[in-house]
């Protein structure tokens, strides 16, 4: 397989899989046509990500990215979490294969959408 160990680790033992019941925010990106689809649900407490869970339909990279983002985001303040970029995630995973950088590296986007959804709801 063309993936490194960090990716294989997250792919085979993904962290924070699932859907939070009664989430404070929901973010969805992608669709099956392009091959990857992610749904993040979050719980917020004191402006911090108290819980982050994801559902992902997608390739090995997409699953690893989702898992890594959830791990990176959990416990962070919303502002901190909003600063996680897709690039950060790829780097934290030791790099994604070149051809996967664009299509599968959507985890931060999904997370940000969930945070934005939460903030919308607060208005």
């Amino acid at each position, binding site marked *: *397989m063309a*993936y490194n160990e960090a990716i294989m680790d997250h*792919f*085979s033992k*993904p962290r924070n*899989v*699932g*859907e939070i019941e009664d989430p404070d925010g929901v973010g*969805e990106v992608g*669709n*099956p*046509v*392009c*091959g*990857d*689809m*992610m*749904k993040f649900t979050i719980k917020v407490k004191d402006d911090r990500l108290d819980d982050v869970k*994801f*559902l*992902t*339909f*997608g*390739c*090995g*990279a*997409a*699953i690893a990215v989702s898992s890594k983002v959830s791990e990176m985001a959990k416990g962070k303040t919303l502002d901190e979490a909003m600063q996680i970029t897709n690039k950060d995630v790829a780097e934290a995973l030791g790099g994604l294969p070149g*051809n*996967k950088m664009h*299509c*599968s590296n959507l985890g931060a986007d999904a997370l940000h959408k969930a945070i934005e959804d939460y903030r919308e709801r607060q208005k």
Partner: protein
Amino acid sequence: MRAINLDYGAATPVDPAVLQAMEPFFAEHYGNPTSVHDLGERPRLALAEAREKVAGLLGAGPEEIIFTSSASEANNMVLKGFAAAHRSKGKHIISSVIDHFSVLNPLRTLEKEGFTVTLLPVDHHGLVDPEQLLQAITGETILISIQAANPEIGTLQPLAQLTAVAREKGIPFHTDATAAVGFVPLNVQETGVDLLTLAGDQFYGPKGSAALCMRRGTRLLPLLEGGIQEKGRRAGTENVPAIVGLGMAADLAREMLAERSSRLSILRDSLQKNLFAAVPHLHLNGHPHLRLPHNLHISVEFVEGEALLMHLNMAGIYVSSGSTCTSQALKSSHVLQAVGLIPELAQGSLLFTLGTGSEAQDAPYVAEQLSRIAAQLRRMSPLYQKYLKEGDR
């Protein structure tokens, strides 16, 4: 853990008898077949023998066989060579939407040069309709090129019916039989094809061994020009070991075709049965009967193919997928699109191709593993969770 290869469509191991036949031609009988002296003799005889054997598999004459380096080369040679030789007669070529890219891409290039191309649609089983072929033929049509079998969904085209239409209209018919040769009987007389592409590495011959079978009297301009090897139809020093290997593989295929195919189709049917019994929400793609004996193509609903493939790989099971992520070009399979498979199912497609190493005991193990893996990935799938909640897709 025994590794279970279910991706023989991607590559086959060279048969021991084939390798044995090839070996003397690397360092012992290494001469050039065109040499006048004695070093050319054994290689020259070996070429002639291999030519007979490949012709024998197809019911053709040895002079109708042109050795090439790959099926892609043979396909490019046919399309470009035909266009170049017959452009004064007309500039229309017909193929199908599910033909291989080594047919479709040369056609795209020919379009840029002023040719018109009709790609016939297929039904949801992948079949081309002879009636639609008839209607597509114009006074300008110079060639029809339709594959014998699809390497993904395994569908076998009704070749004899299609060639009957071509013959009636007097138009040469090429078939890319790369996925079919060695697995289904393909006699050029009986099927009535004028040109046929095959590749040895699909049926236990070596990589780099392929051929175009071209009916006497058919004319095309060579793609590789230079020396007059292959009677001037294909330049370049003959790859003697590969050709000898192809000959031996053809001979084995001729002898064992019926036995091989029936063994493979029994194993394949058992795999199919086991999978469908163990895993819910599976879909069979391609044609339920008119398909390659060693081919099984399914979609695992709600999950993506590369993820499936990677988990199966960790369980020592090697398969292929038509998903976007598993393709080098990062495009989802044009074949699955053409048969009208919805994107979710195309992304979750798995291609199993069985081969010499396949055994009866594999089926239950693979089914058990796929059951576990599909469940695990579905737990993570937003599509599946939505289905569970809402009861629809």
